[in-house]
């Protein structure tokens, strides 16, 4: 009741991005949040409402902090190879986990994930001047390569095979 929050909300959310991005939603208990975020349990509930409430805020923070800069970088991509390189080297841990783990069971997560991936598609389409569906295919390939642990030369081989796109 009107007591000042004894923790840095911004820092706590950033720490939650790391936890959820590293261990997935189901792998993080409230005990984990309490011990890693430096937040008392009661403050956690009072501030975020629920674990899912915190997760949604953390996901949006990840999109703003980690995906947004990727979009800016993609705007400067000159060819498919550089677009692939930018996506495969980005920190997209929480986005990928959200897409697999939470989007199928949580509509709000699904719409955030869909919008974020569409933004990546759009950034690639705009930068390379390619049709939207081709940009989507490039994003999909890049995310696949990222999920595979960015195996040597996969992105290069794909880009070489594609050749000039426009």
């Amino acid at each position, binding site marked *: 009741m009107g007591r000042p929050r004894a923790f840095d909300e911004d820092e706590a959310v950033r720490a939650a991005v790391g936890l959820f991005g590293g261990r997935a939603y189901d792998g993080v208990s409230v005990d984990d949040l309490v011990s890693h975020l430096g937040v008392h349990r*009661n403050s956690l*509930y009072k501030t975020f409402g*629920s674990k*899912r*409430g915190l997760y949604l805020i953390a996901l949006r923070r990840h999109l703003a902090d980690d995906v947004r800069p990727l979009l800016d970088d993609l705007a400067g991509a000159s060819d498919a190879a550089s677009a692939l390189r930018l996506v495969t080297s980005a920190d997209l841990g929480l986005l990928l986990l959200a897409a697999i783990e939470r989007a199928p069971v949580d509509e709000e997560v699904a719409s955030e994930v869909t919008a974020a991936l569409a933004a990546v598609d759009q950034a690639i389409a705009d930068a390379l001047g390619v049709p939207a569906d081709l940009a989507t295919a490039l994003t999909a390939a890049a995310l696949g390569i990222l999920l595979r642990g960015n195996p040597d030369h996969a992105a290069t081989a794909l880009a070489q095979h594609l050749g000039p796109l426009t």
Partner: protein
Amino acid sequence: MARIRIDGDDLVVVIEGLDKLWAFKSSLTIPLANVRGATADPGITTDPKGIRAPGSRVPGVITAGTFHQDGETVFWDVKDPSKAVVIELADEKYARLVLQVDDPRATVALVENSLA
């Protein structure tokens, strides 16, 4: 043990069995607009709970009733910590409810999905 259902625009909590004696309550009706979220939280039972009045606390057996801590009023009805769910409220007598339910995951989904 508590049974939780959504009835129109309300969250209805029914305290079952003898728990309603210990808890001094048999049901609670909360407008969904005042429900902020639900979380499965087995660890909460090991936290300090504050001062009880009215209700029962037999450590290690049952925590039921109204507890006061840090200016907050919290309603508890938990015997089995592994099935504890925390429902956070706003603009209600209780700041939160800590309830034992049959299926915490299903209860959390039910409540979270019913919030706008």
